[in-house]
């Protein structure tokens, strides 16, 4: 059974078809990339999957259960969590507290604060943020804030992690570090990852499979090599260079 299954998912914003009849499947343990030009519907699809608004049509199944129309917090409890394109840390809380919130309310729903603190500590060590745990989130660099966002999501002990342009705005070194982290998340923690990305080298390097959206529709799917040779994709990206 696929971990995540979208069937003919459509979202219509009063006349604007943001997402049209998109169907895809994610198997457990995959890293799948979602690419497409700006406005192709990627973030909308993420919003639909994570429950920010319901689809106009179509079904979204997670582990076999229909989640379309569920509230975001319920979806999170089932094991599906997302990060935001523009990071949204809890600015006035420390790094540790930020991650702790994830542990308190995610899948594991820690009942007491001290247990959540321990769980959070483990995630902090995994993501390399443990030295900065007492710093308020607003004092972090952008790369660290992204890392914090990922850490906080990891603390909810999800099965599927949706990463929304987590590499945007990072320097070359930071990007390599981040890519290592993403791989570790899948390899060591056993998560499935669905990532929206514009940084082509990362998408090509990390993804087992890539899905391409254009104007709200899925126009291609396959591994990195297949997708980069697909004429429809090349046409959509006319002028873009695809790094291998």
């Amino acid at each position, binding site marked *: 059974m696929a971990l995540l299954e979208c069937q003919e998912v459509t979202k219509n914003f009063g006349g604007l078809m943001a997402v049209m009849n998109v169907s895809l499947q994610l198997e457990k343990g995959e890293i799948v990339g979602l690419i497409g030009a700006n406005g192709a519907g990627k973030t909308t699809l993420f919003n639909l999957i*994570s429950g*920010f608004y319901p689809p106009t049509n179509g079904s979204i199944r997670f582990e076999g259960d229909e989640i379309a129309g569920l*509230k*975001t*917090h*319920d979806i*999170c*409890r089932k094991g599906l*969590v*997302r990060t*935001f394109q523009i990071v*949204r*840390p*809890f*600015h*006035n*809380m420390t790094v540790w*507290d930020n991650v*702790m*919130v*994830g542990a*308190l*309310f*995610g*899948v594991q*729903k*820690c*009942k*007491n*604060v001290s247990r*959540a603190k321990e769980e959070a500590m483990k995630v902090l060590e995994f993501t390399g943020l443990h030295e*900065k745990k*007492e*710093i*308020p989130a607003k*004092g972090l660099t952008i790369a660290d804030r992204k890392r914090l966002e990922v850490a*906080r*999501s990891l603390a*909810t002990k999800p099965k599927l992690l949706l990463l929304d342009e987590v590499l945007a705005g990072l320097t070359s070194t930071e990007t390599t570090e981040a890519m290592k982290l993403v791989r570790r998340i899948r390899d060591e923690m056993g998560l499935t990852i669905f990532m929206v990305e514009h940084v082509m080298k990362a998408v090509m390097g990390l993804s087992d499979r890539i899905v391409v959206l254009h104007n709200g529709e899925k126009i291609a799917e396959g591994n990195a090599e297949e997708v980069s040779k697909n004429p429809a994709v090349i046409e959509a990206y006319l002028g873009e260079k695809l790094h291998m």
Partner: protein
Amino acid sequence: MTTSRLGKYLSGLGLLGLVIFLCVIPFHSTDYIVSVLLDILTWIGLTESWIILSGFTGYISLGHSAFFGIGAYVMAISWLKLPYPLIILISAASSMALAFAIGFPVLRVRGPYFVILTLGLSEFAKYIFINYEVNVKGTVGRIMLGVPNIRTLYFSLLIIAIVTILCAYLIKRSRFGYGLFSIREDEDAAESLGIDTSIYKWLAFGISAFFPGAIGATMALRRTYIDPYSVFDPIVSFQIIVMAFFGGMGRLHGPVLGACILTLISEFLWARYPHYYLIILGVILVFIVKFMPSGILGIFELFGKAGKIVKFVRRK
């Protein structure tokens, strides 16, 4: 014993000492002093309970006076029909029930709209009571005779204030509290991490309404005469906000500090120059919102945090 544990023991002891002091003092001082302390306790209770909603979730409410008024009215209506501690509980419960009843739609409104909505609701309640009193009862005010003496009221309020602070303290350290803080920092992010924001806000709203109900009931006894204009007065909400902002909402003792200082100032001014007092409050609020949004305690905390960041940078 580490220093922080020692520190905690000492402050715990200090608090106990303070409470004992407050219990003993009414027997050794004049009525006037007792009444001033009573006022301070009233404001402490009102402000701390307000913090449970507005400080923790960031939903600033200008409607707290409505719950105060409801508490006062429940007391006025039930006076002499039931023992007064019971009435106080019923008043508090009624306030809380009302908050729960209207909570869901009201809390869906965000930011500044929530603020004016609460103001509108408070005024709405006021006019409903005015209308009812005038049309159904004939007169606007209500009188209560044979009220308990001031020292009894003082102790009632002391208990209420302590319970309020205790409640706020327990919430702050609990899982529920962290949920509320997350809502304040970023409601959508909180939702995406598994926090049922609607329920949490609703709970905070209801809990925070419990205490002004009790306080309103007690104060009704103190004033012996109430009318809708005085108990549903938006100036009450205004004072709460200024005290909370002035003292600083980051810590629980912030509002206590704010309540104490501003009540004392009002003591000096209210008798002769109530309007100066309000103008000063207004100016203070403007000043604080612009320059010191974390209040007085916030300034101290700023030094503390700056120190931590400096230490961290040095280590690197």
